């Protein structure tokens, strides 16, 4: 990975961090409603994997912690924020919300709020890719706790039996909502559970974007070359609670301190500084510009956008004007 790419990724990850922290503020101000799950601390997972993928070509989906995956896939941060503000200019016209960001044009196939729900959906996308004969792959990001759902086992089994081009990324942040993994899960190392389905898997440091990128390249090569599914476990940590309604009281402060020393953004920044590719001032300027752009472009757009009209309430319940509802045109 050359230094220009690293600098760009540093910028992207810092943008992601500031975007999420700004969401936090907007939520406290009650500009954002519902549930809000923030990605701060886990940035190297999405950015490392999707840097190795072909965004806009490969299909991506994830859980409800989905803003940043959508942005890395190419969904405009303005329309993501507008969606969080429940505005008609949002990617889902204000009908989805934080947990349901979609950018189908960018092949970001959605955020889903049922833990484990995307496992079979991503396998289905892979089935469609296989039928159509394309070289795209289906990438599904989910947390460690999703692996205790039946869909994990059902989907891994089907993906292997049918040789589907699907890459499962486990963002293992050690907690399922507020319950630590070793209190809820018999086998703590998630990549080991996959061996029961004869699917290749690996566990790597999810805080070091270069490590994630290298592991993702290998995984993607496997899937894209037609060898079937792959499972990559990324060890990571979220800085905030599970959602905004979670005070995070269940985590030992010492554990939080330890992980904060392994911040994916600071690690990459210091590496660039050590290599003489970046100065601390460069970084501070970058941060200032990002903060400004979030206020001046992203927040301003969301604030100034209109609400969806009431006529939209029923518009998308069923597909409008489908001729086959009436038995076709005949």
């Amino acid at each position, binding site marked *: 990975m050359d230094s220009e790419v690293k600098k760009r990724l540093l910028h992207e990850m810092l943008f992601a961090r500031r975007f999420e922290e700004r969401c936090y503020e907007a939520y406290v101000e009650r500009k954002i409603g519902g549930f809000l799950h923030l990605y701060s601390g886990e940035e190297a997972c999405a950015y490392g994997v999707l840097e190795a993928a072909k965004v806009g070509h490969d299909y991506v989906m994830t859980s409800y912690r989905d803003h940043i995956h959508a942005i890395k896939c190419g969904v405009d941060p303005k329309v993501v924020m507008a969606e969080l503000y429940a505005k008609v200019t949002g990617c889902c016209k204000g009908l989805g919300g934080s947990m349901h960001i979609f950018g189908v044009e960018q092949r970001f196939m959605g955020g889903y709020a049922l833990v484990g729900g995307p496992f079979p959906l991503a396998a*289905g996308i892979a089935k469609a890719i296989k039928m159509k004969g394309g070289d795209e792959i289906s990438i599904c990001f989910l947390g460690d706790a999703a692996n205790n759902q039946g869909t994990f086992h059902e989907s891994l089994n089907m993906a292997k039996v049918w040789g589907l081009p699907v890459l499962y990324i486990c963002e293992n942040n050690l907690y399922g909502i507020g319950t630590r993994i070793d209190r809820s899960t018999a086998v703590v190392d998630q990549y080991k559970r996959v061996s029961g389905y004869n699917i290749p898997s690996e566990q790597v440091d999810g805080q070091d974007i270069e490590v994630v990128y290298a592991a993702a390249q290998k995984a993607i090569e496997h899937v894209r070359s037609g060898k079937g599914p792959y499972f990559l476990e990324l060890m990571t940590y979220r800085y905030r609670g599970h959602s905004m309604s979670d005070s995070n009281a269940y985590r030992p402060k010492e554990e939080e301190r330890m992980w904060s020393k392994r911040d994916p953004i600071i690690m990459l920044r210091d590496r660039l500084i050590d290599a003489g590719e970046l100065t601390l001032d460069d970084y501070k300027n970058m941060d200032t510009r990002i903060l400004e752009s979030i206020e001046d472009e992203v927040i301003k757009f969301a604030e100034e956008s209109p609400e969806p009209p009431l006529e939209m309430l029923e518009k998308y319940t069923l597909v409008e004007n489908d001729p*086959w509802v009436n038995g076709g045109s005949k």
Partner: protein
Amino acid sequence: MSEIMFWEAIRRAHDEEMSRDPMVICMGEDIGVAGGTYKATNGLYDKYGPERVIDTPISENGYTGLGIGASYLGVRPIIEIMSVNFAWLAMDQIFNTAAKVHYMSGGQLKAPVVVRSPGGTAHQLGAQHSARMEKVFMGIAGLRVVTPSNPRQAYGLLKSAIRCDDPVFINEHELMYNMKGEVADEEFFLPLVGSEVARPGKDVTLFGYNISVHWCLQAADILAKQHGIDAEVIDLYALSPLDRQGIAASVSKTHRALIVEEAEPAVGVGSEIMAVINEECFYELDAPPVRVSAVNVPIPYNHTLEKAAIPDAKDVVKAVLKMFGK
């Protein structure tokens, strides 16, 4: 016009649509090599191969979700769930994904899947293989629900459901796959909305759907021949959305309504139709509407008790006579 069995009608719709469009696939337990529990996909595996006629593991939520995911990219899966009792396991994907993804994506995604599944009480299958779940499906916004009562409808509704961009649940019946009926030889499509007048009449409307249409027709014969009551039978092949105008039109003509359902009464087809009658044509009624439903029990294994748990034509006749004070 040919007389064919219910399963043959379903098979014909599969075959025609699969031969027309390579994106139409079917999937489910034992539907391929084994030919399908009710033969509805018999022979298709040999014709279209394992990539399009997919024998799934016994993972209802998993393969239903997989079909939904494939449908995002233009695949048109026809998912057979072997028994509606197992559809509970797939309810997460049907309810949380298929029915909602078009809405929550602001119209960006569609999930054009067909889920077919037989329910109903058959021959001593016991409590866990005798569920009637249509009332559950018809309460889900974002899902279409149809339920054929004869081979013609089984063919024509499935044809339209496959091409429709909405997710469609087709409620079939374990006892009806060998039922014979006339089906036109030329290709045709039936609307996924509306209702049919199965028998015109002027004195009372009997509302049925799926198997209960036949109980209504038998009852109407008895009522006409033995009691001089001319019953109209309305076949509600579309349960969601319901044909509110059709229901109101018939009640406005006969001024009496009786709903016959195989399921338990609470929160059901009957209670929903009564609500529609109240909302659309209450002042047309000459008598309170009545529903004939199953007894509110898990279905017993014992044959006599099983029969006692669900209604039949005699129960319908009895209820109509009571309504007329006879």
